[in-house]
């Protein structure tokens, strides 16, 4: 196994090609649940979990069912069904065995189904033809990148509550502006190249 390559995939997913600020995936939950640091970190943790698991499950399905049967055009449909089923399953499992975590995640768990970062990571795994381990690493680290940005952004937004801004910009537009500045900060990582 090539550790250097895994490391560069991981670093890329967290900083350089961050899912939110560099690839524009998962903007809806990013803007929706970033009003408080606590809920934002809960959402981030749930996303790490689901992205890792979805990568792990979709890889064998693609490799051993869709490709041999020549059904690769069904990828999008299959993946979204897998993700929806997975989220439902995790929800039932957590409710029974880990009620405390279930309550912490609350409504954010079902919302993950329509998070484009999850479908995006699975589709990218297929497009880049990553092997199993790289796929899982990419999924988990992509989730970590999501957590990092959403927590940073939520803490900025908490401070912004008390600041003055033009009337037309109140609420959503000023939050988008702040997100733009976070994206600008992360742009600084784009020069970062590890092992070529």
């Amino acid at each position: 196994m090539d550790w250097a390559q895994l490391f560069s995939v991981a670093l890329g997913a967290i900083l350089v090609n961050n899912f939110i600020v560099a690839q524009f995936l998962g903007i809806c939950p990013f803007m929706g649940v970033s009003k408080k640091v606590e809920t934002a970190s809960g959402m981030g943790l749930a996303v790490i979990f689901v992205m890792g698991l979805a990568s792990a499950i979709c890889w064998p399905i693609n490799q051993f069912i869709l490709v041999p049967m020549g059904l690769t055009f069904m990828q999008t449909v299959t993946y979204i069904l897998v993700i929806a089923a997975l989220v439902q399953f995790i929800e039932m499992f957590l409710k029974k065995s880990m009620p405390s975590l279930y309550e912490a995640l609350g409504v954010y768990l079902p919302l993950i189904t329509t998070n484009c970062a999850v479908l995006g990571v699975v589709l990218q795994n297929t497009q880049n033809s990553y092997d199993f381990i790289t796929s899982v690493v990419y999924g988990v680290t992509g989730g970590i990148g999501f957590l990092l940005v959403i927590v940073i952004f939520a803490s900025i937004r908490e401070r912004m509550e008390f600041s003055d801004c033009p009337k037309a910009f109140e609420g959503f537009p000023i939050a988008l502006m702040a997100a733009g500045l976070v994206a600008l900060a992360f742009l600084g990582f784009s020069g970062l190249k590890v092992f070529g």
Partner: protein
Amino acid sequence: MNVKKQFMDGMFFQNPVTVQLLGMCSTMAITTTLFNGVGMGVSVLVILTLANIIISLLRKIIPNNIRIACFIVVIAGFVTIVDLCLQAFLPSLSASLGLFIPLIVVNCIILGRAESFAYKNGVVVSALDGIFQGLGYTVILVIMCVIREFLGNGTFGGGILNGGDGIRILPEGIPALGMILPVGGFITLAVLIAAMQYFLNKPKKGEKKTEEVAK
């Protein structure tokens, strides 16, 4: 009258992007050239209209508990059809939109309209709703594309006009590359939504002004 109201809702008062704040990912990600914006807008319009028609036809059959799963299957089916059509007939558009075509499946606009409109209304109204909401989305995409392409690249109509390079308005070296990068997406959308809020919050004058923009 009702059709006109639906049209105005789709374009301004209930615009999917600037008022309902749905479908943000694709709005910011692909609006770098006019070609991308028009292509994405039309794809979403087609998928939204077809999905609305099918869902409103099936609305009495789909059980309430698993409706979201049913919606997603219908939407994913149409997205696959459009994806394959684009790959076959417009490979250049398909290549530049890339991942964002299959990602229309999780575009909140389509699921949102299915849930809040098509599941409760008749076929014709739902089809019109799909067309007008899709148009509203396309208009916003085109506005964003024109602004970002002009400021970030100094051209107009990239991908379509002048053999794909677009018509150069600003000389090279002046445009700010940042407007094409993600930063520009966030800031352009922020300004656009702020402008929309400004006009919508001034009821009488606002209506006149938005109509002028439409003309």
